[in-house]
């Protein structure tokens, strides 16, 4: 197997993506954008799994399969989350988190 791109390039990209997602989750004020940040984190995990699988353990497929399951579950999670966001919009007429703060402390 000829490696043109070294493994750590993938890891740098995935780490950046993961922490961009964490930052987005904390900083962003729009529920949809927060959901997108979570998806970014999940996709960085996917890159990790596939890269590790391809470069370090090419004779097994565990990482690839894990990725497939993560993709499927992320879709299910997004479906439920968006349904709940629509529910929020009907109740509060807004999907900004600053308006969804009836319960505190």
């Amino acid at each position, binding site marked *: 197997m000829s490696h043109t791109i070294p493994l750590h390039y993938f890891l740098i990209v995935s780490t950046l993506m993961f922490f961009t997602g964490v930052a987005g989750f904390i900083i962003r004020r729009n529920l949809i954008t927060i959901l997108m940040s979570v998806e970014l984190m999940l996709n960085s995990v996917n890159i990790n799994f596939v890269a590790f699988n391809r470069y370090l353990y090419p004779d097994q497929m*565990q990482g690839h399969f894990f990725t497939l399951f993560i993709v499927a579950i992320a879709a299910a*999670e997004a479906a439920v989350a968006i349904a709940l*966001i629509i529910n929020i919009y009907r109740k509060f007429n807004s999907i900004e988190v600053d308006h969804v703060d009836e*319960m505190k402390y």
Partner: protein
Amino acid sequence: MKLQDLLLIRHELLLTLTALILIVAEIFIDDKSKKKIVPLALFLMIVVTAAGILFPVNGTAFGGMYQTDALRSAMKTILDIATVIIILQSYGWVSKKVNQNKTSEFYILMISTLVGMNFMISSGDFLMLYLGLELATIPIAAMAAFDRHKSNSAEAGIKLILSSALSSAVLLYGLSLIYGTTGSIYFEEVRAAFRIEPLPILGLVFFVTGMGFKISLVPFHLWTADVYEGSPIAVTSFLSVVSKGAAVFIFTFVLYTVFAPVSAFWSQVLVVLSVTTMTVGNLFALRQENMKRFLAFSSIAQAGFILLGILGQGEQGFGSVIFFLLVYVFTNLAAFSVVAAISDKTGKENMADYNGLYKTNPNLSLIMMLALFSLAGIPPVAGFFGKLFLFSAAASNGYYWLLFVAVMNATISLYYYLRPVRAMFIEKNDNPIPTFKSDIYMRIGIAVSVAGIFLTGFISAIYEYYLSISNLF
């Protein structure tokens, strides 16, 4: 795949079948009498529980992805019993007019969640753990937002799904690092290949963080109080007992098996988490006025005590944790049942509304007092023994100063557990909650919880049984 493998997962199959039967039954029950689904769901859950107790299974299926033994079967039984009690206590709420058209969905979601928890408990690799965890959390978010006419409930749902998605992502990132350094996702192979190096330890930290969200340990607890307050009470009790119990079990299990070679590392983390969880949970519980929020912080504090048991390690650690979870099921469900009974009839959930409750509803007051005493750990009831075993597990491993902090916290907790008791028995109220009679389901549910509080306290054979099946490590 062999037929043998399918027989091993029969508990999960039975639960899936239960959910499917409820979906089909939904078609045949007309819209006016949807609450007829409750006896059906109750009956099916009792059958599944009985089958789980009478015919325990041992073995490994699907190439090691699924494992079951006496310990895991015992945990599944605890969750089944808790679900039965929650079905009983939810009757008054689901049979209200606003929930008329969506009664069956509630039970279908609840039982699918339980299927996820069962798979999570029985997982033999990280993929199954993750799948079970997600199946156990996604439906709960829909359940939390079940009161569609209340904005609090919508808020609880979105807070739950976003924080659990975040925690899953953190958990997965940890798993990807562990996979990258050990080359496997199977528990046994990971354990064999685990090296004390920065990257796998980082993976362990991410794993503990992700699970900490699910168990609501203290830096990761911020979603808990809001979700518990906003959700319907049946969902709150499900979250605080069943969901938390399953997560605690698999967390302990993975720490004891997969991460056993690095127990020196994770026990330091758990000591810090335990101290912060107990202290912060207790201090915030002091000032709560809403009963659900109060019980939310109480359950955060209890999670800190559970960590003491996990720190005990070995069979004593695991035995005390499982026994505490059983005690906690009965105790917390008794408290939540009383809150649910009062909320169903009057809609009141604040502590000030409970003033003078003993004059009008002496039985409910006494049950609430019993449950709170058990949560606080006052001797004759089961909560005392649960805490005693957790503390002695930690002491047997030499965590004396941690034990001192825990005893201090138990003393603080006594103050706020006695606040509702004071409100019910001593405070005067010109306009107390009127005398009422709950429906038969609620009364049976409360009776089962109270019987559980006493029986688990008095029958020492239960703890000895848990101790005898936890010697796997």
